[in-house]
């Protein structure tokens, strides 16, 4: 594996390898000494064009626990006010000797461009690009689902419902491909205004109310996506936050309609009271906090698989 850019072209073998490696990484994190010497001498750059303290800290912890040197690089700029160009940034990182670049970017495709622009020799790890992909988020979701519902195996027979703003969600895009590759059935639940035109080839079902999803499917894992309030009002994608909550929010009543073994997930940060009620977020079925911990193990696995054996691969 040279780069980790999208879950769409990840084979089942590769996906399981990452999850298996993550399982071993998670085991090391229960020890007293959690630091491993594995990536000593390697430099990992966290290149963040978009603020995301949570994701950056998770990658930073993962890299440091593998003894890599970590450089955090916050690049300002947006589609409106261009800052330093992607190309110049890449050339700078190349000059610094980055072995891996973890990139978070507001533009879809930025990670792909970094990997294929010929500017960098290091591995590129996509930590979220625009509304395209966020592979490690979906890997940690898959890791969490597997741990609870299918230890050691694939996700054959598991039904996962993903609820919310699919149109703008890189988490949804990543999960649709990864979870189905692993054998799960994915159901997207969203208002038609937040479902992309051209979704037909996606390997999943689409329904338009959470109640319909609960009635129709035996849901094993229910993933609530973060909803941005500005899309509700100014964006005109939905009449009001209240109506969204009524139709798509996970409250106590809907929680109780899930099968007993079902888990509730959220990539964070949550809007309590909008897409998820406090009762649901804090219930014993919620694995939301665990997702965060699993994120470190999955990112350790990804960094290990990208960087160990790197020289031989080149």
């Amino acid at each position, binding site marked *: 594996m040279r780069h980790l850019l999208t879950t769409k072209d990840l084979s089942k073998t590769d996906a399981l390898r990452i999850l298996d490696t993550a399982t*071993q990484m998670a085991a090391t994190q229960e020890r007293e000494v959690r630091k491993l010497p*594995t990536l000593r001498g390697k430099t990992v750059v966290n290149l963040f064009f978009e603020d995301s303290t949570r994701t950056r800290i998770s990658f930073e912890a993962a890299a440091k626990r593998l003894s890599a040197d970590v450089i955090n690089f916050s690049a300002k700029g947006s589609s409106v006010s261009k800052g330093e160009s992607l190309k110049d940034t890449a050339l700078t990182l190349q000059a610094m000797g980055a072995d891996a670049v973890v990139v978070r970017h507001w533009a879809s495709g930025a990670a792909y461009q970094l990997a294929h622009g010929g500017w960098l020799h290091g591995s590129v790890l996509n930590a979220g690009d625009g509304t395209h992909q966020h592979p490690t988020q979906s890997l940690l979701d898959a890791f969490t689902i597997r741990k609870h519902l299918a230890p050691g195996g694939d996700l054959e027979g598991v039904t996962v419902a993903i609820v919310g703003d699919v149109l703008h969600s890189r988490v949804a895009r990543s999960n649709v491909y990864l979870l189905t590759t692993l054998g799960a059935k994915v159901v997207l639940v969203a208002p038609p205004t937040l479902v992309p035109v051209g979704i037909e080839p996606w390997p999943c079902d689409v329904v338009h109310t959470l109640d319909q999803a609960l009635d129709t499917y035996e849901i094993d894992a229910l993933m609530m996506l973060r909803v941005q309030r500005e899309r509700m009002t100014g964006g005109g994608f939905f009449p009001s936050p209240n109506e969204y909550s009524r139709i798509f929010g996970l409250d106590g009543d809907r929680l109780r309609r899930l099968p007993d073994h079902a888990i509730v997930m959220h990539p964070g940060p949550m809007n309590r009271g909008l897409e998820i009620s406090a009762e649901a977020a804090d219930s014993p079925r919620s694995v939301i906090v665990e997702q965060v911990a699993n994120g470190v193990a999955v990112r350790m696995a990804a960094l290990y698989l990208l960087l160990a054996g790197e020289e031989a691969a080149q």
Partner: protein
Amino acid sequence: MTGTIMGAADISRALTRIAHEIVERNDGAADVVLMGIPTRGLPIAHRLAARIAEIEPAFDAELATGALDITMYRDDLFKNPTRAIGTTSVPDTGIDDAVVVLVDDVFHTGRTIRAALDAIRDLGRPRAVQLAALVDRGHRELPIRADFVGKNIPTSRSERVDVRLEEIDGEDAVILRKGE
């Protein structure tokens, strides 16, 4: 000299002898923990534990045997294709103040054992660490020696020593092969 160097009976005798040596060296087996290095060090550790339990009935073979995956401690990670990471399991009692006997199939350059010593350090602080190997083929690259050896086999660098075990390979044998 190539071909089968040790047969099933030879391996069995060697392991029995090593088990006795471990008990003798440590005045019993009360504090002994066997840590097998995957892949083939692990079944050898289990066999040794079973033999020690025959000598010292108080020794709980199951409880006192663990696995020590050293992949993440290797110093040649970046020179080889990416390796899958194996399982490390430590006995519930931990390894603090125990006598840890590292168990491997072939003792060669010493680099694996160096990595194992690093891995052990991250798991706890044993009273002592000892090394048992079924075969010592020489060519040390580090100042490390074995405490218990099944058989010393002089080899040239280009030769390969294949240890085959019933649990993994369906037969017990040590085979010396010419290098490619």
